[in-house]
């Protein structure tokens, strides 16, 4: 690009800087546009296409001076009217919400006790939470098959301690899938909560105690409200990936455990119905956008409020 003659000539260092800037922005931008966004546009296009054998019909045809735009929306109409699909969406949201609540219930006290443990222990405790991340997630999910099997460790333990007489059917149920989901996503809840709780100013609790509040009341009226951003961040990190989960329902879920990721997979790999799989993918993105937009709104409000509070 040549500069207009009216501008003062750039020094060679400035020119090099501009060139560097163009590359640093341009290369990743182009890569993501080409291999992330463009493919999604292909999915959008295929979701409204008709398949003739292995070919897709053209969306826009030109014949005798007339452009014809043909969009096949029957896939979407089917998604919106078929009971199985509606049930799948509902149960995906239900499992994701349940997973978020259980992770919060287990993870909040965990993060709290971590953050209130002696400062010398904290790095080790923190490392122990993140360490399983470095081993294969697939293998850790698979491990639960051995634990929850009819002859697995959990059933053996329960029978040996006479809690139950005969092994329970734990594997391939919604229960085993929930165990796998909570197990996988619990660290995603604990880490942001810990990061939030460990920074809290404990003098606030002392002040509350001096003013006569019980520890319990101090916890609910000070600690929990102050950790709100950690709760929201952790919940997002659990809720959104759970919605799209495929591996855990496939390995640990029952035949009737409905999850949307699994339906997409089956439409594509078992039924070979590409347009339908694409329509499911598009509707999944829409499903994920809802909590994301809400989260963004919350964050903007939070930073807006923060900006107002600080003089």
């Amino acid at each position, binding site marked *: 690009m040549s500069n207009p003659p009216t501008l003062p000539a750039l020094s060679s*260092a400035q020119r*090099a800087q501009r*060139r*560097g*800037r163009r*590359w*640093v*922005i341009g290369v*990743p931008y182009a*890569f*993501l*546009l080409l*291999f*992330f966004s*463009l*493919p*999604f546009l*292909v*999915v959008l296009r*295929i979701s409204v296409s008709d398949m003739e054998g292995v070919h897709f019909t053209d969306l826009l045809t030109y014949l005798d001076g007339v452009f014809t735009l043909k969009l096949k929306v029957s896939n979407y109409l089917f998604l919106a009217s078929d009971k199985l699909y509606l049930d799948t969406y509902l149960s995906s949201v239900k499992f994701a919400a349940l997973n978020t609540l259980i992770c919060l219930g*287990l993870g909040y*006290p*965990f993060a709290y*006790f*971590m953050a209130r*443990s002696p400062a010398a222990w904290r790095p080790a*405790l923190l490392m122990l939470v993140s360490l*399983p991340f*470095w*081993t*294969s997630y*697939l*293998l850790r999910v*698979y*491990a639960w*098959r*051995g*634990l929850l*099997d009819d*002859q*697995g*460790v959990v059933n053996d333990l329960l029978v040996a301690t006479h809690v139950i007489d005969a092994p329970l059917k734990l594997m391939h149920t919604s229960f085993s899938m929930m165990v796998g989901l909570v*197990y996988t996503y*619990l*660290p995603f809840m604990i880490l942001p909560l810990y990061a939030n709780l460990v920074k809290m100013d404990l003098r606030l609790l002392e002040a509350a105690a001096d003013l006569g509040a019980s*520890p319990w009341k101090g916890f609910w009226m000070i600690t929990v409200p102050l950790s709100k951003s950690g709760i929201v961040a952790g919940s997002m990190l659990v809720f*959104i*990936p759970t*919605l*799209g989960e*495929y591996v855990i329902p496939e*390995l640990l879920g029952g035949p009737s455990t409905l999850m949307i*990721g699994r339906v*997409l997979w089956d439409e*594509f*790999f078992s039924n070979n119905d590409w347009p339908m*799989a694409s329509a499911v993918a598009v509707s*999944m*993105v829409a499903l*994920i956008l809802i909590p994301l937009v809400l989260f963004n709104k919350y964050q903007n409000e939070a930073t807006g409020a923060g900006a107002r509070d600080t003089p």
Partner: protein
Amino acid sequence: MNSRLGRLWLLAGYTFLYAPIVSLIVYSFNGSKMVTLWAGFSLRWYAEIAHDTEVLDAFALSLKLALLTATASVILGTMAGMAMAKYRVFRGRTLFIAHVNAPLVVPEVITGLSLLLFFVATQKIFGVPAERGLWTIWIGHTSIFASYAAIVVNSRLLEMDRSLEEAAMDLGARPHQVFYLVTMPMIAQALMSSWLLTFTLSLDDVVTTAFLSGPGSTTLPTVIFSRARLGLSPSVNVIATVTVAVVALGVLVASLWLAHQERRRQRDETLAYREALDAAARPTLP
């Protein structure tokens, strides 16, 4: 709150997190063909896997893929992280940031499906890619995992002291010199950890790989996944145990290296400080 309850809760939590891993390791030494039935200590499944060509070939491919993915992701991620941290204003910045964040929230079934359909379309139009395999999976992994590297590098750059870069520039360093001599040493740790992170993510990925692999390109997670789907398999326990051993070793080496770096940095700082003091104590020349 009650510290006994706290200790109990933490203990229960860590048991929950580690019990599955421990059980995998224990049962990998089980002599029985029935995975859950204990039949005495044995190394037979280890001997068997040493001759399991399906597993060994898949592992070699996974390793190659993870090396390529981690390297490409760190390069692209560093550029993207720098673009976000350094250039506060440019056309399309909001869209750029959305692009970097999107792979973190879009489920892999969608990313995998869209890239596959994209490759099918480009093959029909341009004849590229001729077949699916290592390179198509590599592009898929990089398009997702580069974002993880970008986030790590970006947050490190944001907490870094920018005045050093400015000083280098004022002293006449060229942009690439500033990057190699000032920026890169300062973000070395972030580069290292994002390389390791993307390496493990790629080594572990099954969903995107399933969409983008061809007939001759089976990765280790794909083998594990298909065996795990069929039921319990002693070979999977052995793979798990080896993975855990390698990770434990890696963590040990990494933490020793970090401790060493920290010590060296402190020593350098003390030296620099002492020198500065000496210089200050010296009488100034007239």
